[in-house]
């Protein structure tokens, strides 16, 4: 049984022509996913990532954002992070780790019905702050929490 061929067939059925084009090597995934901000995820520092993702690096510290993370993370490969915010009309929540190779970990675009609450698990290379940026009404609000990492989780 040719497993690669089976996978390709399955993918083709799921996404139609895009997957066919991918399978034939005509398009790279990046070209298809124009919406995914590659520059922001490739950025090597926080300011650069924020500029590429949100168009601005100016943010003000806000007490309406709570970053819940462990004080000490034993395994940097799995650090559970919860960001809660009571800022009205929050549009986007981004999670950044300045000490990682690429600081931007994840960004969540909220809709009108979604509450300012997301939980996820991220990788951390070493002890660092975890920065949460909340975009609301065109402004950026920031909060951070320091997490001590005893075993790094970004490969190597």
């Amino acid at each position, binding site marked *: 049984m040719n497993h690669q061929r089976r996978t390709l067939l399955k*993918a083709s059925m*799921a*996404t139609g022509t*895009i*997957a066919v084009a*991918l399978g034939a090597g005509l398009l790279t*995934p*990046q070209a*298809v*996913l124009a*919406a*995914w*901000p590659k520059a922001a*995820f490739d950025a090597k520092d926080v300011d650069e990532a924020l500029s590429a993702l949100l168009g601005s690096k100016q943010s003000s510290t806000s007490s309406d954002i709570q970053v819940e993370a462990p004080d000490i993370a034993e395994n940097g*490969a*799995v*650090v*559970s992070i*919860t960001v809660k915010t009571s800022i009205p009309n929050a549009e986007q929540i981004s999670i950044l*780790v300045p000490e*990682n*190779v*690429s600081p*931007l*970990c*994840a*960004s*969540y*675009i*909220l*809709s009108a*019905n*979604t*509450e300012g*609450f*997301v*939980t*996820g*698990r*991220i*990788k951390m290379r070493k002890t660092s702050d975890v920065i949460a940026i909340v975009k609301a009404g065109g402004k950026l609000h920031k909060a951070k929490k320091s997490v001590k990492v005893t075993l790094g*989780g*970004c*490969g*190597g």
Partner: protein
Amino acid sequence: MAKKKMKIRAWTSDNRATVKAIIFHPMETGLRKDKASGKAIPAKYITEVNCKHNGKPLLTCLWGPGVSKNPFLSFRFKNAKAGDKLEITWIDNQGNTDTTVSKIS
């Protein structure tokens, strides 16, 4: 063959829904090396996750390689009732994709 790609739990209380989901995915950063051969393991990570509630967009997650293996996602939203349809779709940097539909209880 039928290996589960995603687990979703969603429930409501007071018009408000809580969603918890786990996607089974290796989330390779592309920085890790295979210890035996010394070659870099190619990057394979989820770039986008779309969540829809009764067909309407609810949450879009943009993820990079910094998200852990077998990513966990939890969020809450308003105006939900039991029996509503919740659809979660992901796509990774290699073009793999999966959609799982679940009912809110």
